């Protein structure tokens, strides 16, 4: 397995773990009555902004740990260079992720049109964010293995 493939797998699992832990934390506070996610949309904004910050910091830490473990196990100190094929793979994978997110975006509005509560849209945004990241990283693994 190449460095890029391992990195993609780490990205998928770290993204899932961070979102699940943060989601459970927020839901627990909602159940405790500290805020009402069904009515207070300002809280959603704060939750999203904190999530972005938490996610970036957690990913940096996870990436450093991954690189250290990879260096110890494979004895490869240098990160492989990002050449034209790598950039092409990233571009195609990002395109797939973009399409996934666009579909979820439409799904959110379909739910609103069906009369579902407004906060459902935020939940769909979170799920679509996670889903598009999974699609992006899975696509990267696929293109690395099967070619572009």
């Amino acid at each position, binding site marked *: 397995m190449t460095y890029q493939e391992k990195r993609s797998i780490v990205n998928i699992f770290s993204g899932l773990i961070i979102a699940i832990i943060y989601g459970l934390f927020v839901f627990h506070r909602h159940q405790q009555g500290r805020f009402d996610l069904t009515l207070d949309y300002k809280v959603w904004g704060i939750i999203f902004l904190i999530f972005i910050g938490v996610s970036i910091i957690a990913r940096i830490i996870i990436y450093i740990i991954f690189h250290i473990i990879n260096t110890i196990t494979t004895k490869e100190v240098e990160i492989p260079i990002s050449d*034209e094929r790598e950039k092409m793979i990233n571009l195609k994978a990002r395109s797939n992720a973009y399409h996934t997110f666009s579909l979820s975006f439409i799904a959110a509005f379909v739910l609103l049109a069906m009369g579902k509560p407004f906060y459902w849209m935020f939940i769909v945004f979170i799920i679509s964010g996670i889903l598009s990241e999974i699609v992006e990283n899975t696509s990267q693994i696929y293109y690395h293995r*099967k070619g*572009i």
Partner: protein
Amino acid sequence: MSKSTIQNSIRKLRFNADEMTQQQLADKVGASRQTIVAIEKGNYSPSLELAFRIAHVFNTPLEEVFTYDENKPLDKKQITCN
């Protein structure tokens, strides 16, 4: 995914160049070893610039490194991309 219509003789050229490794060729052309592997297998068609750099390493004309297989029909995806 179907193999490329562009064939190459990089493997043979590497062998003739004192059994140059894929990593050595990758370092010389500024690409990763995985890219060289993909090109050799026909899973990736390099850009014109990279193709010229590979030919330059072997001191060979481009058409001796890469050949276009006219008999192989283009698949739908390749037509769309090109």
